[in-house]
């Protein structure tokens, strides 16, 4: 919970930073003008900066062009991908229908967009406490399935990755090198593998009656994320000086205390990276999800895929794009909040000197 609060605080700070960015920009420009006027900087010097910045901006625009293009498509009228009149659709036709559709008609939030409200139920059902949706006959939608899967993936992933990375980085044990080597070899056998072994997986799951089980699917994603992320985190931990741990030990901290109070906080950037990657492992995958799950349990990724393949021959593009944009939003937010950590956390294999 506190982690959540911290995350929210971080997001808020970022938003504030974003909101004040224009002001800072103005200040920057004022300063540049001042510096030129007072002769602290030459005009050419400022011009160079401006040109570089513009060049950077242009590059960003080019790189993000596909997303920009499809976002305009999501705002346009109709469902066709192409706009024969030009690259972008006519702005006068822009509307939010597609987003309205995603929220209130698709299964994004609630099945058939039928919003209700949750009601806590004590006792009864499968667990002690469960909750039920009131005011909707259909129930929570794909978002909740996705979140459930991602939670399982994150919980299982972190539960296995963090201790293992620590052990690899700090302990000596039988088979350490071998396992690590194996992990490195398998880091990239993921995406392709899931297609390749789809049938094998399906038979495995169905043999044990584990199909249509969000929990198991979450575990599966965690499994696929383990090698790469363990290795990543291990590399990161390698760079944390050992003396912090020793200091904690001398301070009387038990092993668990040391982990909680020292290792984890110091590993934060690494954890942020792992968070993103593990999250993406559970969030984006759809091929296996679709094969293993039944429709009522489909996560957003499968729903998205289904929109793409919905029409016999064509795709309702505005809806597809709107859905995808909303789908990518959480990841974007998490990344945005953790950008600095991610950039720090991925720094390895760099300078030795």
């Amino acid at each position, binding site marked *: 919970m506190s982690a959540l609060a911290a995350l929210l605080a971080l997001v808020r700070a970022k938003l504030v930073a974003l909101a004040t960015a224009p002001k800072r920009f103005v200040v920057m420009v004022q300063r540049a003008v001042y510096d030129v006027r007072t002769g602290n900087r030459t005009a050419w010097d400022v011009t160079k900066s401006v040109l*570089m910045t513009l060049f*950077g901006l242009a*590059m*960003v625009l080019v790189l993000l062009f*596909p*997303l920009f293009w499809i976002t305009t498509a999501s705002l346009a009228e109709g469902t066709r*991908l192409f*706009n024969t009149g030009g690259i972008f659709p006519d702005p006068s036709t822009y509307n939010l229908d597609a987003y309205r559709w995603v929220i209130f008609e698709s299964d994004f939030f609630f099945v058939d967009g039928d919003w209700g409200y949750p009601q806590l139920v004590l006792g009864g059902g499968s667990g002690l406490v469960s909750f039920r949706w009131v005011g909707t006959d259909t129930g929570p939608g794909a978002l909740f399935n996705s979140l459930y899967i991602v939670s399982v993936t994150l919980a299982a992933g972190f539960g296995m*990755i963090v201790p*293992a990375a*620590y*052990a690899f980085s*700090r*302990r000596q044990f*039988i088979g350490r*090198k071998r*396992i*690590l080597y194996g992990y*490195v070899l*398998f880091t*990239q*056998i*993921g*995406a*392709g*593998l899931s*297609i*390749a*072994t789809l*049938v*094998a997986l*399906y038979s495995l799951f169905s043999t044990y009656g584990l199909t249509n089980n969000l929990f198991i699917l979450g*575990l*599966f994603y965690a*499994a696929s994320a*383990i090698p790469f992320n*363990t290795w990543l985190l291990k590399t990161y931990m390698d*760079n944390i*000086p*050992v*003396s912090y741990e020793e200091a904690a030990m001398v301070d009387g901290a038990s092993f668990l205390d040391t982990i909680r109070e020292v290792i984890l906080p110091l590993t934060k*950037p690494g954890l942020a990276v792992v968070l993103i990657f593990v999250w*993406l492992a559970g969030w*984006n995958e*759809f091929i296996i999800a679709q094969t293993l799950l039944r429709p009522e349990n489909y996560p957003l*990724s499968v729903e*998205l895929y289904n929109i793409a393949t919905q029409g016999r021959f064509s795709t309702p*593009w505005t809806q597809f794009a709107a859905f*995808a944009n909303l*789908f*990518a939003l959480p*990841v*974007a937010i998490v*990344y945005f909040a953790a*950008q600095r950590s991610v*950039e720090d956390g991925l*720094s*390895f294999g*760099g*300078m030795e000197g």
Partner: protein
Amino acid sequence: MASSQIGTGGGLSRLRSALPFSNRDWGLLLVAPGVLLFSSFMLYPIFYLFYISLTDATFAGSVIGGGAELIGLANYVQLIGDSQFWTSMTTTWLFVAVSLVIKVLLAVGIALLLNHVRVAGKRYMRAAVIVPLGFPGIFTITVWRGMFSDARFGVFNTILGRYNDVMSSLSAPELLLFDVPIGFLSGRWEAFFAYVTTEVWLAYPFMVIIIVSALQDVPRSLHEAAMVDGAGALERFRTVTLPAIKGPVLFASILTAATSFQQFLIPWVFNQGGPSRQNELIIVYGYREAITFNQFGLSAAILIVGIAFVGLFMYVAVRYGGLAEGVGDE
């Protein structure tokens, strides 16, 4: 990291052997759950797939339903004799290589630019530039498929058309004009180009983050030392920046190359490896054999070969690319 000079390097292996009670193997306990989970969900299916590749399974169900019989290595033998297999292999490697080169160049360029002192707001730009990472491949690839439409009103053809208009209004020579509409998806190399472009776009964010990280770790004093040594900007890039990012770039290259090798969605969504199966990357090839031609055993053999290649590739890369430095540092 704040102060990473504090006893790392040799300190690590020292610690490993030095921490009290460390020679007990309980580290294994921490690693075991992950290994177990990984093996059961990842390794097991591979073995299963290998088993299938030894059978005459025709469709998925014949495996699950038990209707397949072991036929030894016949599938592999058939594979070797299949020209499509070799086409697919060549194309796949070519795809990996070409996209890798472009990816690296592009990512280094972006990272340098977005880490340059003169660029204002570079943090925001860096945040923006890696957004593609957050979108699901099925979406972005479908979008790219749309943009690469062969039709004159396809996005790229429209852009090229506009470019032509501008150029010819400048009365530029014919040579600089494009012959629109370009059949991005209907020509073999055009389609290949479209695949590569898309693959590059999908993979550059990861590289950019890694390179940016590395760039930020380069001590300023190294640049200054080079400056004092009389090195110009280009030389400094060569002697200071490049070596500093070489490791990370290599690392990212190996990872993305392995992913490229397994690229499925791009060819599948674009034109199913066409035209005329000329661009069937290896996974697409395997997938098609299974789904379209009901050659499940053969398909499994293809995929096993594919996986073996990735494994081999990783092995070589790890061995000779110094990737395993962190693995066996004793």
